[in-house]
């Protein structure tokens, strides 16, 4: 019983997109038009934390965040490629252990990578 969706089934998603974008644009223009406009130089300064701000905020930040993003990309690719397997697993598992073994190898390498990352202290936040 494999349900087969065709490109037409994705049309309502486009409709929702159009409705959402219409709503967002409408609200943005409405507030722009309705709200009061009393601008002054001080008011348009960045609020930051209440006191006068110092310097620019295009600052470099901790490399940890960057590392998290790289590791996320790698793990995300692994996770997404497990989906085609998971969908078929209920079927394959009726014919033996081979399908599970295939995934064990894949998952084993992923776990090995995770252990390596943790042991190297890449995820340690001071």
């Amino acid at each position, binding site marked *: 019983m494999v349900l087969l969706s065709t490109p037409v089934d994705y049309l309502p998603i486009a409709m929702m997109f159009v409705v959402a974008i219409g709503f967002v644009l409408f609200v943005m223009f409405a507030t722009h038009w309705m709200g009061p406009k009393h601008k002054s130089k001080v008011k348009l300064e960045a609020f930051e934390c209440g006191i006068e701000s110092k310097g620019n905020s295009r600052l470099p930040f901790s490399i940890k965040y960057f*590392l998290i993003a790289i590791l996320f990309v*790698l793990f995300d690719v692994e996770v997404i490629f497990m989906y085609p397997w998971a969908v078929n697993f209920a079927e394959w598992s009726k014919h033996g252990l081979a399908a599970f073994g295939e995934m064990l190898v894949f998952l084993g390498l*992923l776990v090995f990578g995770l252990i390596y990352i943790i042991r190297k202290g890449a995820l340690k936040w001071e």
Partner: protein
Amino acid sequence: MNPSLPFFVLATLSVFSALMVVLSRKPVHSVLYLIFCFFTIGGHYLLLNAQFLFAVHIIVYAGAIMVLFLFTLMFINMNKELEPHKSNLLKGAATIAAGCLLLVLVAATKGAETLPAISKTSDIGTVSNLGKALYGQYLLPFELISILLLTAMVGAVMLGKKDVE
């Protein structure tokens, strides 16, 4: 309605956003146009009923790799004064290099017209059929890819580690 209308709408949007990636002056705007471009290309995959490819394209490219791009842009100090001025020689070299890449990409599509056409209602791109191919016929390359990803992980950790004296 012309059946190829969605294709032309999507194709126009992809070309436009791809051009804007190159033409916009601010790097963050470029990244956003690139994300939009990925969405339109995802739409092309849907028109071909390649559903898994669509999902991967949105989740991995638009949702993960572009986050990394944005992080990188935010990570490097992007004050205007620090932006290096590019000489005309450098611009010329970049044009030639990009032109070569274009040539290679166009050349790669040569012979595609002789391949058998896949009908739009074919279910070859569904997740379960793709899984059958990936874990059947292409099992070895697939497992090798996980080793490649492991290598990338090790590399990332080595690069991100603090230098210990």
